Each structure stands twice: as structure tokens, then as C-alpha cells.
């Protein structure tokens, strides 16, 4: 156990860094995608609602490992071979980010939709009755209130996404799990390797959920 830490500790920490980088990139775009489709699902426009619903259903209905293979291998193959004339290549980081963003974005969209719908309809009516536009009312009145109820679910989704980065080891991105596989192959110490990796995830996620609890408490002040 000690030998793995002394010999491979730095490597594993670096890999954890890449896991966090991938998760952060994925989450960043997931927030944008989630907000976009979340609002699309609550506006009074049938086509927008339907498009949003289809996006969520499709992404939710496909396992992420399939999505990863599809984006990393399938999409370049489509452009380069089936359509032809393109030269599209995705790095594992790019493909991984896209996968996480789509996957997490779909769930975020549902969280945001539910959050917006949890705000009393009277708030929107009062805002509109004053002459505020729909967008102004959303931004100044509805979303600030919706976010409070959304925070716990969003943090939960962040944690799931952080763990889901491990799935992207299948497309060869050298995040923590992928790196750990190499360490295990070199040392044959599978118990020790995976125990250490497990503890590393545990520490990061515990820190994340603790700070989330603190943030939640702070946001609830004055409620």
C-alpha cells in the first residue's frame, strides 16, 4: 500500500486533477445546456416544450457508455466516412466533455424545469402585471427563487457527474480510473490500488457535499 502511494501517488493525484478538469468542463457546459432546455420546457410554446422533452428523453434513455462510444467513435466516422469529405477528430477530453455536458445537461434541465415550476404562478403574474417582460420576470423574480429550491438537486447532480467521469475511461481519457488500471497492471496490487482510488473519490466528494450543505444553509438565511 505504502509503495503505491510513494511510487504512484503523484501520478494518481495528477489523474485526479484531470478527473476534476473533465468534471468541471462537463458541468460548465451542462449548466448552459440545462438552463437552455429547462427554460425551453417552461415557456408557453408547444414546439419548444416538445424539443426540450425529446432531448431529455433521448439522453436519459441512452447509457452514458453508449453515448461515449457514439460521440468518440461514431460521430467522426459519420463525418469522415459516411458523409465523407470532412476530417473530424475529437480528442478524448473533447468527446468526454461533450458526453458529460449532454448527459448532465439533460438531468439539469429537468431540475431547472421543476425548480421554475415550484415558484408560485402569482409571482410571474404580478411581475407581468407591472409591465415587466417575460425575460425580465424570469431573471429578476422567478429564477432567483427557483435556484434556492434547486440547489440540493444540482449539487447531487454534480456529484453524480463527477463519479460518471470514470465511465469515460473507456474512451481512453487518462482520468483517475484509467490511470489506476495502469498502476494495477504494473504492480499487480489490485486491492491496494482500488482501495486508494476509492478513498480519493470519497475525500473529494465528501468535501464537495459538505461545502454544498454550508452553501445551502447560507442561501436559506432570510427565508
Amino acid at each position: 500500500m505504502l509503495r503505491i502511494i510513494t511510487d504512484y501517488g503523484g501520478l494518481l493525484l495528477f489523474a485526479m486533477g484531470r478527473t476534476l478538469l473533465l468534471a468541471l468542463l462537463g458541468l460548465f457546459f451542462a449548466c448552459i445546456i440545462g438552463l437552455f432546455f429547462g427554460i425551453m420546457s417552461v415557456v408557453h410554446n408547444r414546439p419548444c416544450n416538445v424539443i426540450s422533452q425529446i432531448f431529455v428523453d433521448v439522453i436519459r434513455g441512452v447509457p452514458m457508455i453508449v453515448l461515449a462510444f457514439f460521440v468518440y467513435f461514431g460521430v467522426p466516422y459519420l463525418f469522415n466516412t459516411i458523409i465523407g469529405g470532412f476530417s473530424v477528430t475529437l480528442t478524448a477530453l473533447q468527446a468526454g466533455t461533450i458526453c458529460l455536458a449532454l448527459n448532465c445537461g439533460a438531468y439539469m434541465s429537468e431540475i431547472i424545469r421543476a425548480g421554475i415550476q415550484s415558484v408560485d404562478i402569482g409571482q410571474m403574474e404580478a411581475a407581468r402585471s407591472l409591465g415587466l417582460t417575460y425575460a425580465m420576470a424570469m431573471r429578476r423574480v422567478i429564477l432567483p427563487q427557483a435556484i434556492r429550491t434547486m440547489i440540493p438537486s444540482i449539487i447531487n447532480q454534480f456529484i453524480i457527474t463527477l463519479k460518471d467521469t470514470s465511465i469515460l475511461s473507456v474512451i481512453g481519457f487518462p482520468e483517475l480510473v484509467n490511470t489506476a488500471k495502469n498502476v494495477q497492471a504494473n504492480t499487480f496490487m489490485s486491492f491496494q490500488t482500488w482501495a486508494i482510488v476509492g478513498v480519493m473519490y470519497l475525500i473529494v466528494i465528501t468535501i464537495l457535499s459538505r461545502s454544498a450543505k454550508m452553501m445551502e444553509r447560507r442561501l436559506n438565511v432570510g427565508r
Partner: protein
Amino acid sequence: MSVAENDGMNGTKARVDEDTVRIRVRDLRKTFGDLEVLKSISLDVHQGEVVVVIGPSGSGKSTFLRCLNRLEDATSGVIEIDGVDVNGRKVNLNKVRENIGMVFQHFNLFNNLNVIRNMTLAPVQLSKCSPAEATERAMKLLERVGLADKAESYPHQLSGGQKQRVAIARALCMQPRIMLFDEPTSALDPEMVGEVLQVMKDLAADGMTMVVVTHEMGFAREVADRVVFMDGGYIIEEGTPEEVLLHPKEQRTIDFLNKVL
């Protein structure tokens, strides 16, 4: 139509200007699916007039009010606010709404903003005035409704009566030409009804054009220039408070008044 006697009111009631029609409604109909809530409503509201709409639950009073600023889309008919067709395709609804203040049964103060920001949000966002001017105007209005000390409070820190007074002040902060009240005292504890009605009486005395849906018969008697009795989606009877409340002609009005008085 006569100007109401202003017994029991402070100040003199501003005269109704019969030549200026602020709200003109013709043959308004509204259906929700198969349910016909409004069946041909026609009504004019003049400058400075206080029209009180009474009637049993489900008679369409609130729906009628909500059609006036198009919180509900009318199914058919004409609604003109200062000559602008509210149901028109090209109408700038936000501009129309800037001139119509609305007060709701459940106050609907913005829970995420304190009192002063509740009031200044719309004027500032819509560039009606600078933030400083808006704050100054809001403070004056808060003084008028007796809540200057609550400027920094959040809605959840206020009583129902205080919330409703802030809601009225918030609507006034847009300097509307018309005020709509949708059962403004129905969600209040009895001891808080008076303070809200007083603010409304003062507003009426200042000559504000008002349409008030309420169950407060005392308010109707004292403040209304005209009382409109609605039932089953129709206007059954309308006239001065004396005509409708004391000498009703229609049997349905008599039945209703017997129940509530």
C-alpha cells in the same frame, strides 16, 4: 350615474369625468375548455370612477378583471384601455400593463426582494426613472401607506395587511392610470382588513380610476361610484351603491345580498 356621496371619507371625492372612457368592454366572452365563464360582458369605466364588482364565487368576477390586463386571453369581444385594443395582435401588452396596476388576493410580493426593491424593480427595469428617483418615489408611497419603517424588510417578515399595503404601493410606483383589485382583502385576517381598505379609500379619494372585485359590502357602499353585480358570467345589475345594494331589482341580486348581508 352620480358621484358618490362621500360620507365617512376624508377629503373630497374627485369628480368622475364622464367624457373620458378609460376602460371600454364590449361583448366580452371567455371560455376555459367547455366551461363558459364570461358570457357577453359590456361595461365602460370612466376617468376617476370607482367600480366595485360583486357576486357569488364562480360568477366570473376575477376572470373579468384578469381579462382587462390580459392575464387571461379573452375568447372574443373587445377590451379597450384608453382606446388601445388589448386583444389586438399588434398591441404592446407590456406598455398597456405599465398603466394598469393590479393588486392580487394573495399579494404576490416578490419573495426574493425586500420591500423597497419590490417597488422599484419594475420602474427601474423599464427605465421609467433612475434608481434614485424610484427609491424616492417608493419611500413617499410607503409613507402614504404607513410602512416607511418596513422599507428594508422582506415579505416573509410582514403581516398580511402589511403585505397587501406594500402590494398596492408597488403597483402605484409605476404611476398607473387605472388600478385593478382582485379580492384584495379576502386572504386577510379580519383585523387587517380595515388598514387595507383605508389605503384603497384614500386612493379613491385622490381620483384614481379603480375596478375592485370584493366581498366587502361596506366598502362598496361607501366608496363605489357604481356597483356591478355579476352572476353566472353575466352582469345582472349595475347602478349606484344605493340602487344595487339597497333597492335591487333583480331576484338574483336580492338572493345574493340576503346571503351576504
